[in-house]
Structures are given as structure tokens and as C-alpha cells.
């Protein structure tokens, strides 16, 4: 799937310079309110050549650049302004996201809690092992 920046998008002009790399690099949209976890995941995933767009709240996430399509959504559950599970359900109903896989990570919820609300491609419980997490991310994106 090739993504070209929209010409009317003035907010992120630097994407022009990245666009060549973006053709090959997978984009992960990370939603996690804990600053520490967010930072580590950003470093980890970008060191594995993923492009990470990270958000600390649902409000923040809704303001994202919608012209950029994700290859994977990686969501925390308990967020300051709502639930990552509810957001997952909502986003899955959007036309553009129908085939984009979701991964849910949580310290709290179990896969059973998600039944019928959001069927993620994978579920990671916190605290996680980074190697394990990378393998799962890779395989979920590959399955697509």
C-alpha cells in the first residue's frame, strides 16, 4: 500500500522528504498514555525501521493526520479520556481501516474482556518482553 501525502496538507510538509522511505517502511499508530512506555516503544519500533506515530490520549489521536494510513494500530486500554477498546471498535468501522490490524496491550484487561467489542489481531499483556512484542508486531503486519 503506497501512501502519498496530500497536497493540501500543510501541517506536515516534512512528509515530502520522508515519502520515499514511507513506501517501504511500515507505519504503526501507537496510543499509550504512559510517557515512559511510549518513549521506549518509539525507540524500539523505530530502531526496527517502523515509522511510529504516537499519541497520549484519544483526543490527541483524533487530531491525527488522516491522510496517513496505518499498517498497524497498537493501543493501550485504559486511557485518560476513554477506553482503547471502544476506540478500536469505532475505528474498525471506518472504511479506510477495515483491513488494518489492531494490537491491544494492557496491564489489566484480558482477551476475554474484548469479546464482542473489538476483535484485535493480537493481545499483549504488560509488562511485555520486547523481543516477543517485536515478533508479534512483525507477524501481525505480515499476515495482512
Amino acid at each position, binding site marked *: 500500500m503506497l501512501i502519498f501525502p496530500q497536497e493540501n496538507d500543510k501541517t506536515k510538509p516534512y512528509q515530502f522528504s520522508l515519502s520515499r522511505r514511507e513506501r517501504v517502511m511500515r507505519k504503526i499508530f501507537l496510543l499509550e498514555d504512559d510517557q*515512559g512506555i511510549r518513549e521506549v516503544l518509539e525507540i524500539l519500533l523505530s*530502531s526496527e525501521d517502523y515509522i511510529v506515530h504516537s499519541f497520549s490520549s484519544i483526543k490527541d489521536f483524533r487530531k491525527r493526520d488522516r491522510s496517513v494510513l496505518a499498517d498497524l494500530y497498537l493501543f493501550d486500554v485504559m486511557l485518560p479520556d*476513554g477506553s482503547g477498546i471502544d476506540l478500536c471498535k469505532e475505528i474498525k468501522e471506518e472504511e479506510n481501516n477495515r483491513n488494518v490490524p489492531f494490537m491491544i496491550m494492557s496491564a489489566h484487561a484480558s482477551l476475554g474482556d474484548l469479546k464482542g467489542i473489538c476483535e484485535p489481531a493480537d493481545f499483549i499483556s*504488560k*509488562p*511485555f518482553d520486547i523481543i516477543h512484542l517485536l515478533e508479534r508486531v512483525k507477524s501481525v503486519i505480515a499476515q495482512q
Partner: protein
Amino acid sequence: MIDSERGFENLISQAPVAILLTKGEDYIVSKINSTMLAILQKDETIIGKPLFELIPELKGQPVAKMLIETYEYGVSHVETSHPVTLVRDGEAQECFFNYNFTPYLENGKVIGVIDVAVEVTDQVLAIRDHENTIAEKVVLEETLRNSEKRLQGILETMAEGVGIVDSMGQMVYANPMAQQILGLTLSDIEDRTYNDPRWQNLRLDGTPLPHEEHPMTIMMTTGKNVFDREIGVQPPEGDRQYISINAAPIFDENGNLTGGIGTFMNVTSRRLISQGKDDFISIASHEIKNPVTSLKASLQLLERAHSRLPEESRTKLISQSLRSLENLSRLIHDLLDASRMEQGQLRMQKSAVSIDEIFDDCCSHIARSSRQRLIFEGEKHLIVNADGQQIGQVLSNLISNAIKYAPDSAEIIVNVSQIKGDQIKICVKDSGPGIPPEKLNHLFDRYYRTNYEGQKYTGLGLGLYISAEIVKNHDGEIGVESEVDKGSTFWFTLPS
């Protein structure tokens, strides 16, 4: 004439009423019929003998007095159901008679007394028996009434609700506490069954309680007692209640189930405390897992990819790890403090210390790192006799809260003042969103945090609880004044 006299004598002797004629002042038995002989248990040989010698027990009895009066004054006496004690079969017995004493005249002069009597002992005894029964019943009724009054008093004042249902499950009685717990009036009771749809019964997890799981249904279908089953009840209006139900069947003498009695207690506060604890534990584990997650991931990443990572990322990961570790130790510290508080084990090391010093130790670094302006003003030099570290913890809790919950408040003002002579008051004032009045009362409770569900803020929600405990240990007071949209002022006092 002789025939007619004999005939008359026959009539007398066979008459069904007892007849006796005594003569003279010795009351000689001169005529007596067989009915009277039978009453006296004598035979005809007594004729010609003095009555009181034949029947000595009569002496002194009212009947004897009347006999004597009739003879001496020539007046008749009529008595009904009159008691006379007679020796019968060797035993003195109280007998009852309707009798009539009439003077017996000859030539206008009283020479004897005619006694006509009917024994009514059986009837009198029967009546007396009846009366005794009635009297006993009156006493019994009185006792019953008292005991019912006592029971009623107990039912009306007891802290447990009591409800009685008939065999159809229709409630036929509910004591005042039951009415209060269920939010019912007496007239409601008549048309409420224990699984009335208007009162939604709930399982503890909040899902509807099916009819067959209701403790009263279980009791009515099994015929067995049910103890301490807790259910939720959502009345048509008002807050959800939790009640603990004991249910017992009522059987008639043939062993048929005729209804049941349920006693129930409102255990809402008990339930809310335990729910608060559950919430707290789940929050605490979430709060602890976050720093552990980032710490673990950072260290793993550093270990595996140290050389491949740019310098900038390495620095970030290390300082991030330290922050996570600091968070963790603060959380653990709070947890330990809270549990020590609970057990009253937090020891104080009091010394004379100025508020200035306390502030410098606990909070100057907060002032430096915060985006908001932290103003420390008032009589800062005032000295308190306190555990400086613990008071510093209170101050830093209040300041951190102000920063956390009023992020848009440009200034946070810490003010020290002397009040009421020997008290020092320290206020932490923000101009943030304020706190709604219904939440103010609970702020200092353990396990209370203004917003669990939204998870708007991180932390265990123990800060204010710990602060309140510390201030109380110092014989001070802690409180808050707040107005929505105007800001909040948390304050505490200490003896100087």
C-alpha cells in the same frame, strides 16, 4: 280424708324436690322425703332426731343461720345457688342449692320450718368451670397481647428488615426497616411480590438477578433456609442498595409450605467499601505495571541493542528508566505508608522546625520543575513542633495535587498564617476547575479518588488519605474549600 293425707304424704315423699320439715327449737326432723334423704345421705331412722346433731357440719354455716332466723322470726328465706358444706362419703364437700325456708305454722304460731331444696351443685360447678375457663382465657389473651406488643416493638425497632410472603410469594408484611430498605410504603407492600419488576434485583456484578436465583425463590422451592445471600436492589428511584438476605420457610402443622419469612440487612456501605478496595487494588496493580513495563522494556532494549542505538536514544532510555524507578518507589512508599497508617505504626520524630525549612526540603524542587508559578508567602518563619519530613510529605502532596488537578492554574499559592493564637494554618490555593460539593466529603477517605473510571490521573489516590492521617497525628486539622470553576484551597493546621 285419711286417704288424702296419705296421698299427700306420698306426694311429698316422692317429689323430685327435697323437702324437710323440722319442728321446735331443737329442729327435730319430723318429715323428710327421699330426695332430701339422698342429699343428706341418711335414711328414715333420722326422723325424730335433732337436725344439727345429725348433721353437725351445718352449725355456723349461713344456711343454719337462715334456718334459725326463719324459726325464730317467722320470716321466709329464699336462696339460689347457695353454698352449703356437707360431709359426703366421709369428706366435706361444697354443694350448692336453690332453697326455700318457710315457717311452719300451727294455730298462727311458728312451730317449725319447711325446707324445700333443689341441689344445683353440678350446674354451679359447670358454670364455675366455664367462668374459670373464661378467666384463664382472659389472662392468656392478655399475655398474648403483651407478647405480641413486645414482638411488634422488636419488629418495629430492629435494624434488620423483616418481610413475610405467602405461598404465592406475595408480600404480606414488611416491618418499618424493610419498608425503609426497599423504599416501600405500607400500601405498596400489598401489591409487591419479592421479584416485582419495578424493583430490579441484581447480581453482585450488576447483571439482572434471574427469578430462580433470588434467595426467597430458592427457599420457597427447596423449603430450606438460606443464609446471608447478598443481592443488589435497584429501586425505581434512588441509589442501588445491597442487601443480605436470610430466608426461612413457614410450614403448617401438616408440613405444607405456606409462605416464608425473609430478614434482610442493608449492607450497601460494606459492599461499597469492598468494591472500593477491589477498585483500589486494580488501580494499584495498573499503576505499578506501567513503570515496570517501561523499565523492563528500556533495560531489555539497552541490553540487546546498546551499540546500535544512537546516543540520544540511550540517554533517553536511561533517564526514562530512572523516572520509572522513581515512580515505582514512590508508589511502593505510598502503599507502605498507607498500610502503616492503617495499623497506626507511622512513628513521628518531632522537633522544632520552621515552615520555611520544611518547604525548602520538600518542595523547592517541585517549584523549580513546575511550569506553574509556585508562590510561597505569609509568615514562613513560624516554628512548629512536628515531624518535618511527614509535614513536608503533606505539603508536597497538596502541591503536587494542585499541579496535577489544576494544570491550567497559572499560580499555586502556599500561604502560612497564625490563627487563633496557637495554631498555624497552611493553605495551598489553586485557581483550577474546583471540586463539586458532593465529592468534597470523600476526598480524604482511603481508596477515594475523584475519577476512577476515566483514569484521568495517575497515582494511587492515597495522597490525601496519608496527609489527613499525618495531620491528625499532629493534633491538627485538614480540610478543603472549593468552588467549581473558581479553584480549590486545601489547608491544614498545626499547633505552634
